[in-house]
């Protein structure tokens, strides 16, 4: 037996009691706090090792991300693709589908929007009220189709979706390159590997003159709220969770795992693709090779840190938006090199995935 002082035991018990009493507090606040502080301390050490002042670096990052209206607006803008792809991953993982393909689906959405914006929109009357919804619908369809491919492979052939979605990411990435570098979507002047800008009536308008806040942010937040309702208040969401947390029990209950896999994969792909289309239509009017810095992969961390809860995904997406904004600030104002800030972002991801996913997998394997 351990001979711990009584006071320690008592303190430990008290601590335990609080944790047991408020499981949600632990799940949603305590664990994420531990993860984040671990990551920030490690990163602080790295900044120190590189010869900079971590406090100064962090305060610059905070200041730029949240210190001004423009900064906050820019953080929101940066968060939107994380939120859309994060929701895509969250809904798939909830159903026990390990969709690693948000990146490819995001790109296919952007590609379809580029095609529509450069080739089709010019044939239509120049009204945003028709062009924008059409363009978004097209992206949803493209993403849905890109998501259905691994779903059908999984359901009919038993192909592991992790492998098939990674392969589809490669296909999407290189297909985009092909299209904009010598392909039919390359800019008319043929100077660089990028497309022409999309027609201005397909672009999402800016809500304010001073910064780039656009209606896509609202779409993403509303989708997060709708998905929360779907997951926890509808029969569809109930089935998604039942299949994800107990496939055999769901099958015995009469819910088809195959049907739900196809439906959810389709939905997941559509969400990521919508994110890609919004990003293109609101920010970069041209599609280029550097369009996505890996949003679809980071999305896995976004979703896992949010415990696959769509509402919490809003918060974690904001965090990732702030992080990417903040690393620009550290680079610009403190002089920390790009490589270091990228490393630091990756360290945060490692902490999140390493600690955050442990919980998820424990939950799934505990039966």
């Amino acid at each position, binding site marked *: 037996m351990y001979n711990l002082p009584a006071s320690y035991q008592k303190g430990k018990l008290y601590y335990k009691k609080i944790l047991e009493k408020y499981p949600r507090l632990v799940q949603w606040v305590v664990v994420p706090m531990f993860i984040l502080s671990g990551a920030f301390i490690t990163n602080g050490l790295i900044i120190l090792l590189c010869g900079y002042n971590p406090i100064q670096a962090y305060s610059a990052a905070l200041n730029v991300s949240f210190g001004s209206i423009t900064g906050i607006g820019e953080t929101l803008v940066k968060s939107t693709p994380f939120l859309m792809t994060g929701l895509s991953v969250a809904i798939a993982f909830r159903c026990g589908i390990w969709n690693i393909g948000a990146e490819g689906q995001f790109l296919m959405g952007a590609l379809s929007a580029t095609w529509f914006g450069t080739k089709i929109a010019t044939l239509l009357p120049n009204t945003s009220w028709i062009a924008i919804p059409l363009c978004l619908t097209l992206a949803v369809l493209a993403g849905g189709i890109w998501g259905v491919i691994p779903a059908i492979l999984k359901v009919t052939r038993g192909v592991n979706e992790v492998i098939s979605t990674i392969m589809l990411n490669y296909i999407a990435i290189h297909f985009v390159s092909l299209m904009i570098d010598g392909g039919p979507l390359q800019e008319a002047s043929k100077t660089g590997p990028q497309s022409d800008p999309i027609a201005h009536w397909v672009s999402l308008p800016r809500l304010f003159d001073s910064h780039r806040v656009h209606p896509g942010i609202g779409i993403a937040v509303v989708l997060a709220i709708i998905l929360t309702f779907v997951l926890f208040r509808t029969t569809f969401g109930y089935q998604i969770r039942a299949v994800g947390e107990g496939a055999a029990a769901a099958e015995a209950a009469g*819910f088809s795992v195959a049907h739900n896999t196809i439906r959810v994969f389709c939905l997941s792909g559509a969400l990521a693709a919508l994110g890609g289309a919004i990003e293109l239509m609101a920010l970069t009017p041209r599609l280029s090779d550097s369009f996505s810095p890996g949003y679809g992969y980071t999305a896995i961390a976004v979703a896992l840190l949010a415990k696959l809860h769509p509402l919490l995904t809003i918060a974690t997406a904001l965090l990732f938006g702030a992080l990417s904004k903040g690393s620009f600030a550290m680079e610009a104002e403190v002089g920390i090199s790009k490589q270091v800030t990228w490393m630091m972002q990756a360290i945060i991801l490692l902490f999140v995935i390493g600690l955050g996913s442990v919980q998820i997998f424990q939950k799934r394997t505990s039966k």
Partner: protein
Amino acid sequence: MDTETVLELQNITKTFGDLVAVGNVNFELQVGEIHAILGENGAGKSTLMNLIYGLYEPTDGSIFISGIKKQFKTPRDAIANGIGMVHQHFMLVENLTVAENIALTVSQFSSRSGAIMPENDAESQQYVDRNIAALSRFRYKTDDAVQITESLSKHYGLVVDPNALIRSLSVGLKQRVEILKALAVDARILILDEPTAVLSPQEVKGLFNILRRLQEDNRSIMFISHKMKEVLEISDRITVLRLGEKVYNGKTGELSARGLAREMLGEELTEIERIENNTTNGLVLNISSLTVQGNRGEMAVKDVSLQTFRGEIVGIAGVDGNGQRELAETVMGLRPTVGGKVEILGKQPIGTKNIRQCGVGYIPEDRRTMGIIPTFTIAENLLLNVPHLENVANWGVIDQTIKHHTSTELIDAYDIRPPIADIPTATLSGGNQQKIVLAREISPQPDLLIAVNPTRGLDINAAQYVHKNLLAQRERKKSVLLISTELDEVLKMSDRLYVMSRGELIEATEHRDDIEALGLLMTGETDTDV
């Protein structure tokens, strides 16, 4: 036989939070004794065994092995002190051979230092040490392992093929391997946790012969069971636990079966009232020439025909793994047929959803993976089938008030504890989890109820509760198909009786009073295991 005490527990107590799982238990095990531990589920039997086996550390009290005080922090400590355990759920690597499994156990021990060793057993000690030395070398030699396994099984008369893969063995043989594993490190005290739960009557006989042989070898055996008949047959001494406390200890035969039951339950057993009822009108389930493949491509169900009618319980007895599970899953649409057909109320619905909507309830054998979702709340698990879910939903949106009402109603009616709709089901006991399944599957009063091992792992009271609910279905003129490996249960409950063996279904209603004949049917007549 001398009465030397090999294991003694003094005032052993184990608490989990506020719960006293085992309270102040004193216990003595003699050399060469078969000592039965009787008790309901939750009486503390498993906790007591886990304390002896080093899986738990006692909160209070001490353990003495041959008079020396010991502390077991892990099962390794217990094994090193000569304690072996045969778990209810076998701890074997299915994809390895018998010899490899035994080598795996033995290789973890470099020596048997500290073990209790009667002096006349020096030879056996040397023998075991030699085995350990051979198998704990870095390089594993198949021949050594096979040879050691063979000589072990010859020494103790436990015949098993050392080169057979575990997954190809019957349950009875797997159990033998478990016993061999314990003997390979020379266990002087053998703990058997519900060893007969999965065996056919013949296999039980075989096991008892083995136990008697081990007894002659001066090994001590703790036999945990809640099957009265077997306990009375095999044991020398009986200890009864109730609610974590020792309530009785005495020589076998001092108390009658009824007396022991009274000690176990604290009250007289209430027998189920049965009304004889033979008006079999109205065909419900009609299976004709059904053939189904098992998971490994074998024919698990072979040309089975079966009919069930309104107002009857049809029982299918049989040893685990003879196609019962596959039969039930096929009727529920969870498994494709190779040949034949399944008709329910004259229709042939396709897919589990349609089958359930035809009015079929299903109590699957595997509660924790097929019956409930442990991470779901009680309320959510009460909705876990298509008709239930559709009842609480409007246009696909779950009506929270209706959901709340149904769940509180069912929790109340089926006495699910704790009666809190919003806690995860994983925190409930097995019996209460089963009540959730019952509440969900029986409350809509399905025309056909398929119940597979509905009382597995439940204590007597909970099992009786299940039986009452099945009989209630019968009284409502519904049809029940009861598939169970508990022969007593099938005999007690069913109007018509079948035995399933190696995928074939044999009508056995006329043999219901002849256990021997049933046992032979269950093991497929030619029985080589005994």
